[in-house]
């Protein structure tokens, strides 16, 4: 008989798909169900899942994954310009192109480990950023960003006689326009596929070997493994995830700018992964949800909104509170993010997932249960359990 357990991939995928696809419903009460934000959740979710395959499994911290995000974006926009407004070629080409670049950058960067690896990836990403801004302007359109124009070739579209509309055409999936909720659902389906691939990797011998490399790379060599190709595979896979995320950004908004490759974008995915829980399957997604949601809430606030929130306080006290908190909202929301990040790293080094695991353990103890079938701790170390 099949056991209903999180060890079973089918069960995990059913729950995950249900949660993702119904997101517009259950995010409504907290006001996070509008398409733009939902798309961001899904896109950055893909980015973070991929990043976690490298950082979470092998422990190699890349500070240059934004480069692949940017490459995916540019490739997607070029696919719209040259071939067709259909999103499928854009997604596929964006992912492959990022993979090619990841192979080259990874091949060089993986000659070093630890901080030197991080610095090498950072250097490559900053180089890509600078190139996109300056030398490569014919390809990237420099500062303005690459965008669609009326006289783009779109050879495949014109081949099939797609009528040119007035104004710029919009991205579509065989006619279905990719904006609003349909854009979200397209991203969501790819997120589900991406999560499934990540789940398979985490629970494969390949994934366990990556974890073992993180644990003791020297031992792996003397155990008979050539560790470099393993690391390179993980690097390329995670680069392809980043490329996919970048392509999706261009699909929901067909414009690619160099700032997508800046180191702050690389840093953001590091924050998301650590905040949620490095090396866990779900953690990076929680990190994405938390950061993108709060970014959205806090950056939209202004002093007058704060005044309203604190109106229950006596006026003099309310003024003081507003005077302090106004620095943490709007453009200053990064202060809030920084404080949040510090609290998590200090008190929950394993990220939000560690908090959840502790909570489950606490509840288990309170209820006096010996065994919970639903084990929230979906740590990488579960790979070898014989179920």
């Amino acid at each position, binding site marked *: 008989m099949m056991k209903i357990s999180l060890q079973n991939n089918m069960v995990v995928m059913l729950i995950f798909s249900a949660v993702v696809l119904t997101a517009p419903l259950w995010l409504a009460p907290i006001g996070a169900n509008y398409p733009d934000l939902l798309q961001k959740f899904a896109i950055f979710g893909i980015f973070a899942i991929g990043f976690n395959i490298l950082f979470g499994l092998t422990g190699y911290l890349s500070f240059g994954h934004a480069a692949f995000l940017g490459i995916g974006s540019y490739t997607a926009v070029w696919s719209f310009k040259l071939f067709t407004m259909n999103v499928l070629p854009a997604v596929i080409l964006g992912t492959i192109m990022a993979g090619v670049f990841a192979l080259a950058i990874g091949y060089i960067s993986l000659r070093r480990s630890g901080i030197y690896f991080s610095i090498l990836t950072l250097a490559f990403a900053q180089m890509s950023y600078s190139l996109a801004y300056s030398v490569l302007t014919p390809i990237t359109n420099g500062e303005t960003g690459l965008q669609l124009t009326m006289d783009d070739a779109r050879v495949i579209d014109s081949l099939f006689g797609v009528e040119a509309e007035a104004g710029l055409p919009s991205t579509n999936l065989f006619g279905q326009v990719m904006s609003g909720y349909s854009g979200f659902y397209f991203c969501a389906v790819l997120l589900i596929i991406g999560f499934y691939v990540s789940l398979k990797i985490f629970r494969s011998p390949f994934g366990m070997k990556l974890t073992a490399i993180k644990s003791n790379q020297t031992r792996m060599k003397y155990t008979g493994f050539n560790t470099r190709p393993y690391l390179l595979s993980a690097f390329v896979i995670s680069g392809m995830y980043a490329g996919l995320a970048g392509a999706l950004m261009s699909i929901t908004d067909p414009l690619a700018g160099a700032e997508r490759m800046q180191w702050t974008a690389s840093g953001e995915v590091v924050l998301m992964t650590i905040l949620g829980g490095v090396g866990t399957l779900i953690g990076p997604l929680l990190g994405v949800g938390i950061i993108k949601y709060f970014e959205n809430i806090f950056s939209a606030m202004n002093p007058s909104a704060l005044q309203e929130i604190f109106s229950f306080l006596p006026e003099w006290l309310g003024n003081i509170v507003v005077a302090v908190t106004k620095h943490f909202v709007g453009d200053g929301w990064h202060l809030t993010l920084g404080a949040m990040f510090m609290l998590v790293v200090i008190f929950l080094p394993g990220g939000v997932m560690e908090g959840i695991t502790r909570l489950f353990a606490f509840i288990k103890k309170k209820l006096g249960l010996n065994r919970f079938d639903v084990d929230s701790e979906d740590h990488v170390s579960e790979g070898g*359990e014989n179920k």
Partner: protein
Amino acid sequence: MSYILDIEGVNKTFGGLHALTDIQLKIEKGTTHAIIGPNGAGKSTLLNCCIGRLIPDSGTVTFNGHNMIGMQPHDINHAGMVRVFQTPEIFPELTLLQNVIIPALAKRDGTFKFNPFRSLAKETELQDQAMAALADVGLEKYHDQHAGSISRGDKRRLELAMGLIQQPSLLLLDEPTAGMARHDTNKTIDLLKKIKERGMTKVIIEHDMHVVFSLADKISVLAQGCIIATGTPDEIRNSAKVKEAYLGESEDE
């Protein structure tokens, strides 16, 4: 006589220090060969030269007819020479079972295999094999504990299981019983005797004379980077040269 390992004229210096001087050592197939010597005699350096961790300044290391000098550690492993380390080299974040599955995977998959869509849970054969290897060293009941959490003696035995599961033709053991309690040491001796019956060749570096004399077919004595004597346990026991260099002093330890 067929030699599985043939070390010829190996020299290694660190700065001005002669760690190994003109080492000549031949290991016969199917035997247990002990290398003894005082601390700093160069025993671990010699093993490191065999498995590719160090490259000797001169000389050859021939294993099964192939020169091992300059080969990558992972290739040496696949050639059939496996080392068990002195300070436990394990995967502390992984469970004991996973620690043993990893070397079994190396044996099966080779130096690199890209199989991200294979399910680990369906590798029942490997898991059974790993459980058996853990049972061999008496650790099967801790199989789902993290390897970092077990005692030092248990870690040594885990390492032994990791080496044994690869069924190497030559197993290099670096002080397999160091840090073990007496009854654990005896258990390890019994286990190593059992392996010998399977025909596995072993090189053991050891301080504990009880272990050496109960296991070894041949003993080489290393002192200050030179092999001063090689012979059967009886020959070594009665050699005046060895007594002077090593055995006499070790009584005080």
